[in-house]
């Protein structure tokens, strides 16, 4: 029983302090009283930067052929860096950090506008997503040229869906799952194995119709993949959900790795590290995307173009993502969904109200896993090749980053974060303008700095919005008026 101690341990009963009264802004100090300390502080920071960088940047040892190391001095560079830091610090001291600066109140006009925009935001988002391939075609000039953009759209939407799926587990139920990619892998391999299975193919050829499995396998396997992933969610959940917080995170992380290692080592089933590559392409509900007479293009009277399949894939993932979003919205306003959020807020109180917390956590885990499985099956049919390489911890980390960056629990936030993160990383691939002579020179490879820039951006966003892009929680039901709950009150869950 000792393990309950921390939960039920009575704290000293002190009534919470009332909200502190807003303090009247103190009169702004005179200019020179601000300028002098600001300058002093900036110079000091500059000197410290210089001293720190002196050994790190100031000396450079280069290997000259087979000869000895030659030392070059780069004091100029050090002073440039130190100067930059100094100026930046001074600017900050005089603006954002200026003493006596009144806390910035959100302008009422802006709040009004955002209030009016809010209800239209989701439909607008969705309408844009629906029209996106056509916009891409128009802007890139032709169907074939839009390939890159449609592909990027598919890529981003996959992560939007994964983010929404994980959001159920992490954002709503407050269970930190670091192994979400395991369910993605289960879905992908389920589809890959079933669709490329020779006996299944032969069975359906013999009993249903010639070529049935090749053209229908995705549509049959999609639900199977989701259900199987959900089942794995339950299997994993049973032993693991007694753990909380850090322990849960570590065990789920390990589970993700175990699945990957099994995929690598169970060569007879999964073909090991070489992966499975004979996955049949997606069909338009049985109609193949090929140039033949019974192909999609011929039937719909179009000129054959391999982009038709891509655009169809785009709409499939859009549909799957929409399904995830709609299911989550419904679940949230059902007793289970409320119980998930209540669990995140206070597990003990949940139990005192008769909620079976193990079962509730399991449903959250299984539901999240199921959507991960759908996304996995889609991934397999899009790439038509699966290998354990695609399901590393990095994937879990990116999906979790999307959920955290988006603001845990918020769907619009998670979608924006996916666009920002995945789209942003993709944009960073194309920073060839940095190669200009006056910037970094032609031997500079911006894609090498992708992760660095990306990391900085993440840190910046988390400093600027520590609770994610959308910090508020929208209540699931209201009597008179739906008021957002401030993120400061919403708990993040404990395990």
């Amino acid at each position, binding site marked *: 029983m000792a393990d309950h101690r921390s939960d039920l341990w009575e704290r000293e009963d002190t*009534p919470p302090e009332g909200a502190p009264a807003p303090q009247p802004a103190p009169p702004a100090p005179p200019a020179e009283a601000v300028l002098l300390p600001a300058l002093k502080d900036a110079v000091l920071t500059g000197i410290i930067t210089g001293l720190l960088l002196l050994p790190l940047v100031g000396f450079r040892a280069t290997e000259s052929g087979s000869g000895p190391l030659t030392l070059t001095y780069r004091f100029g560079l050090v002073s440039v860096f130190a100067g930059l830091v100094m100026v930046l610090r001074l600017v900050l001291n005089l603006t954002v950090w200026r003493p006596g600066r009144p806390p910035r109140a959100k302008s009422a006009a802006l709040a009004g506008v955002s209030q009016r925009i809010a209800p239209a935001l989701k439909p607008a988002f969705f309408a844009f997503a629906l029209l996106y391939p056509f916009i891409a075609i128009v802007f890139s000039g032709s169907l074939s040229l839009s390939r890159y953009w449609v592909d990027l759209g598919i890529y981003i939407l996959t992560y939007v869906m994964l983010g929404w799926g994980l959001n159920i587990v992490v954002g709503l139920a407050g269970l930190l799952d670091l192994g979400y990619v395991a369910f993605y892998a289960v879905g992908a391999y389920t589809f890959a194995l079933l669709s490329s299975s020779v006996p299944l193919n032969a069975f359906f050829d013999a009993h249903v119709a010639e070529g049935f499995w090749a053209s229908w396998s995705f549509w049959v396997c999609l639900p199977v993949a989701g259900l199987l992933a959900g089942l794995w969610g339950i299997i994993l959940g049973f032993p693991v959900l007694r753990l909380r917080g850090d322990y849960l995170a570590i065990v789920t992380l390990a589970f993700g790795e175990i699945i990957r290692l099994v995929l690598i080592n169970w060569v007879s089933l999964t073909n090991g590290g070489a992966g499975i590559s004979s996955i049949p392409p997606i069909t338009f509900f049985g109609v193949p995307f090929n140039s033949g007479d019974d192909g999609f293009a011929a039937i719909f009277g179009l000129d054959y173009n391999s982009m038709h399949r891509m655009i169809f894939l785009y709409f499939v993932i859009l549909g799957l993502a929409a399904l995830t979003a709609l299911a989550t919205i419904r679940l949230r306003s*059902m007793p289970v969904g409320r119980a998930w959020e209540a669990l995140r807020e206070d597990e003990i109180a949940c139990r005192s109200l008769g909620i079976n917390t193990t079962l509730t956590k399991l449903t959250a885990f299984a539901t999240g896993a199921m959507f991960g499985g759908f996304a996995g099956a889609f991934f397999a049919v899009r790439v038509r090749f699966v290998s354990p390489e695609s399901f590393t911890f990095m994937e879990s980390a990116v999906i979790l980053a999307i959920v955290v960056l988006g603001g845990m629990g918020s769907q619009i936030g998670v979608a924006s974060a996916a666009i920002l993160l995945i789209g942003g990383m993709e944009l960073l691939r194309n920073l060839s303008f940095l190669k200009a002579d006056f910037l970094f020179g032609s031997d500079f490879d911006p894609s090498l700095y992708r992760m660095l820039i990306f990391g900085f951006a993440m840190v910046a966003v988390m400093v600027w919005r520590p609770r994610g892009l959308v910090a508020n929680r929208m*209540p699931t039901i209201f009597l008179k008026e739906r008021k957002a709950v401030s993120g400061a009150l919403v708990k993040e869950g404990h395990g």
Partner: protein
Amino acid sequence: MAEAASPSPAPKSWDLNPLLKVDHLSMRFGGLVAVGDVSFRAGRGEVTAVIGPNGAGKTTVFNCITGFYKPSTGRLALMQGCPATDAELDALTCGGLASARTAAGTTYLLERLADHKVSSRAKVARTFQNIRLFAGMTVLENLLVAQHMSLTQAGLINPAALLNLPSWRRQQKQAVDHALYWLDKIALTARADDPAGDLPYGDQRRLEIARAMCTRPALLCLDEPAAGLNPRESLELNTLLLAIRAEHETSILLIEHDMSVVMGISDHVVVLEYGRKIADGTPQEVRNDPKVIASYLGVEDEEEVEAVAGVHA
């Protein structure tokens, strides 16, 4: 114990018609005996107060009753419907089952139920000494979470709810109406759409009680509901408890330091000290009990000073 031998053994109402029978309850934490061999009865439809100095083991008794702790020894029998006889209880205890249903009612052995089943099946609801509301959810949502069990009778993932069918909407409407009934009782209807964490302390206390009542409990356990309340809030709380007692079939088990609350609304007082029961009787009897005066009422002033200081801190 010693009190049992006191003169005039007129049968007490709680002995005649008990809802909860606590027999020889002990709870040890390592070497510490937090509760030692405590037996008492809580009468049906009555308010039973458990009082005692800090650290006497009151909260531990509550945690045992509500299933959060498994008692080291002892029996906790809750009898819905007609009270079971001692012989029936003993038979149930030896049988190894957690509950027995007869035509007259159902008897639960609480120490054998998992914590959530103590609430969902035996219908025991509780509040906490340190408030445990769902702070990031609205007042209305808090009251709907409390009705989880009645709303999920058709399954945790109910297709009618998933598709938002009319049958489900009707059910949800009933739940909202029930919540509104309790919101009205605690005078918080105007704040239904505000997050629970934004409410003043006294309102949070009453909301927690309303949330517990939304589970339609047979027994409501309140752990120091008046702690930290100012006199006005304390009065509102008394009114609420009296209303629950008058209008509902819920019996109340109450831990309280505030003597005015205890004497004002309770039918039966059990006094604990160092994990043992030292007195048990009507408020009048307990008030005049020399042991209680010596051990507990002596520190009453100090406690009250603390409480008042807490409010003004």
